[in-house]
């Protein structure tokens, strides 16, 4: 990877707070780099210091140790306005500018570039319109911010960050509180923007499965130990993805792409259509239903059918609920 594509580099960074004379360490040994045109997801358990790391990158809370370089320059030497021209954010803070229109809100992103009055010039207008187009919120522009939904607002906030037109965009849990479709859409949107506009985008998220599908790079921030960075796929194959999970009770299952209990109860008695039996397994496991050795279940699809055989007696069921009633009712 060529050096000039690296926007941000962190070397052995340690972060924390200073309260009085005591330093409260949050995390250390963080080395990372962000590249142009890539979507990077920062994952980690609550309270591990993801927000503190972001504050450090934004120059709001300088690292205790190590260096954070923005295009080769230490963050702390950049003043607020210079940094604002390079880095924009979407935060978790609830905002309430109900009286602004969507276009005005997106236009606020031009604040670091405009004169003292904040006059929007021709070039500013072009960038605002292109940000609106990239985020596909053109149909909302004349609505008041108070009138749009949470999912729409999140896209508008991304448009605002895009209008700030820096090399780096940082988003703190942009998909929290959103429905499934909006989560997918927003992450896909961010990926498209990163690739098409050659921006480096860093997203803090807890949506592991969506992140796996969209991110170019993962930063894993475990409770202890250094920051782990690699492609999501390599992290899954090598099992390093499990560093996200602080307890051994759960494991990432590379086959299903899901986090599952690390001691799965196997049901060798179940056989048949592979589209159906995982769901029967899942239902039995969840309800703590054990199968006796003399029971065998054959499942088939189209139509979905469960054939339960016990001591030579066969019974047929059309739903998982009926199967479970049969199995538990006997006990």
């Amino acid at each position: 990877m060529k050096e000039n594509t690296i926007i941000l580099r962190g070397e052995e960074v340690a972060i924390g707070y200073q309260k009085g004379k005591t330093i409260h360490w949050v995390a250390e040994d963080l080395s990372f780099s962000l590249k142009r045109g890539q979507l990077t997801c920062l994952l980690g358990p609550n309270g591990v210091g993801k927000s503190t790391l972001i504050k450090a990158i934004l120059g709001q809370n300088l690292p205790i140790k190590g260096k954070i370089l923005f295009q080769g320059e230490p963050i702390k030497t950049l003043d607020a306005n210079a940094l604002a021209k390079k880095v924009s954010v979407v935060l978790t803070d609830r905002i309430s500018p109900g009286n602004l229109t969507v276009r005005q809100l997106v236009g606020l992103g031009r604040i670091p570039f405009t004169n003292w009055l904040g006059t929007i010039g021709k070039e500013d207008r072009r960038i605002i319109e292109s940000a609106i187009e990239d985020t596909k919120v053109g149909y909302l522009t004349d609505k008041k911010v108070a009138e749009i939904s949470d999912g729409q607002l999140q896209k508008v906030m991304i448009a605002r960050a895009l209008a700030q037109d820096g090399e780096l965009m940082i988003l703190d849990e942009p998909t929290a509180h959103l429905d499934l479709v909006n989560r997918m859409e927003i992450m896909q949107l961010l990926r498209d923007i990163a690739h098409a506009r050659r921006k480096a985008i860093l997203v803090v998220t807890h949506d592991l499965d969506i992140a796996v599908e969209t991110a170019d790079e993962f930063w894993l921030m475990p409770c202890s130990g250094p920051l782990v960075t690699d492609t999501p796929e390599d992290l899954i194959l090598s099992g390093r993805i499990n560093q996200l999970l602080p307890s051994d009770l759960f494991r990432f299952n590379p086959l299903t792409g899901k986090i599952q209990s690390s001691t799965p109860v196997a049901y060798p008695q179940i056989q048949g259509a592979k589209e159906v039996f995982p769901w029967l397994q899942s239902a039995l496991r969840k309800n703590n239903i054990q199968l006796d050795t003399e029971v065998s279940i054959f499942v088939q699809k189209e139509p979905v059918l469960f054939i339960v055989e016990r001591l030579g007696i066969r019974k047929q069921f059309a739903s998982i609920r009926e199967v479970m009633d049969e199995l538990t009712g006997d006990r």
Partner: protein
Amino acid sequence: MATGKNNRIGIAILGGTLLIFLLFLGNISIGSVAIPLGETLSGLTGGGVSKKSWEIILLDYRIPKAITAILAGIALSLSGLQMQTFFRNPLAGPYVLGISSGAGLGVAILLLGGSAFGWNLLGDGGFMGIWGTIIAASTGAILVLVLMSLTAWRVKDSMTLLIIGLMFGSATGAMISVLSYFGGAEELKLFTIWSMGSFGGTSKDQVMVFFVACLLGIIPVLLFVKSFNAMLLGERYAESMGVNLYQLRWAMILSTGVLAGSATAICGPVAFIGIAVPHLARMVFKTGDHRILFPASSLIGAGFLLVCDSVSQMPGTAETLPINAVTSLFGAPLVIWLILKRNFSREF
């Protein structure tokens, strides 16, 4: 499309300015002695007034009073708007940082301290009396402002600053209560009348001082318009857009201190304007953009106080109502009516 909207707002602001001028004319024509509009106009343009007594009433009394009303309207509305945006709190106003209470305490010490501590600062009243009140109010406002600033130095969070401001207000209010308790009946009445607010009794000199104070207080507003717009998204977003919160906070404290402090010193604690006018401006102009809201609030504040002052004259009678009673009596129903009618956005 966007330029069409700008034009509309330009016309609205121009029309507003014209309306203020008409209200100003009306305001100086009415009172216990009615002066015909034509005479007022000719007096204003230097054409001379047919009666000497009218000229004296106009030049020495009514014009300074009307200008005081306009300046107070601008000063209080601008303070209120700055505070509401900075604290992201729709209830913030000039009272919030304890500035008005500080001025009140200054005046209370001057007027009531006489009987409480056994001194006589009022002198023979008259000219010295009015300047005395103004100086006492300014000193009180500045003292509270300095205390607030020292605290603001240590406090990082603006919500905490808001709470501390309210505490300062309570503490100074309590001191005023103590002074009132020990004050003599005559002084207590003087203080009560001062606390009801008045635009009258200001000389040309005092209006000049007020004017200069307003100009000084408006400078930070002009310099930080853009930052106030950024603050619509809250502190952290504003910071990410390059706004220096620390500078902005000081600009806000100094500007509101000078504006609200001087208004309270000259007119007494005029209630209601600081909180209500910014909301009126948002409702009437339907925007959150401070480039429009600052001039709009100034216009509405000035116009509102001119009307209230005209009403308080009770044209045709020799009596005058206290201005504080009029602003709230007329203003509160107006704001409630507008909120109900206009589908007021709670997210301001």
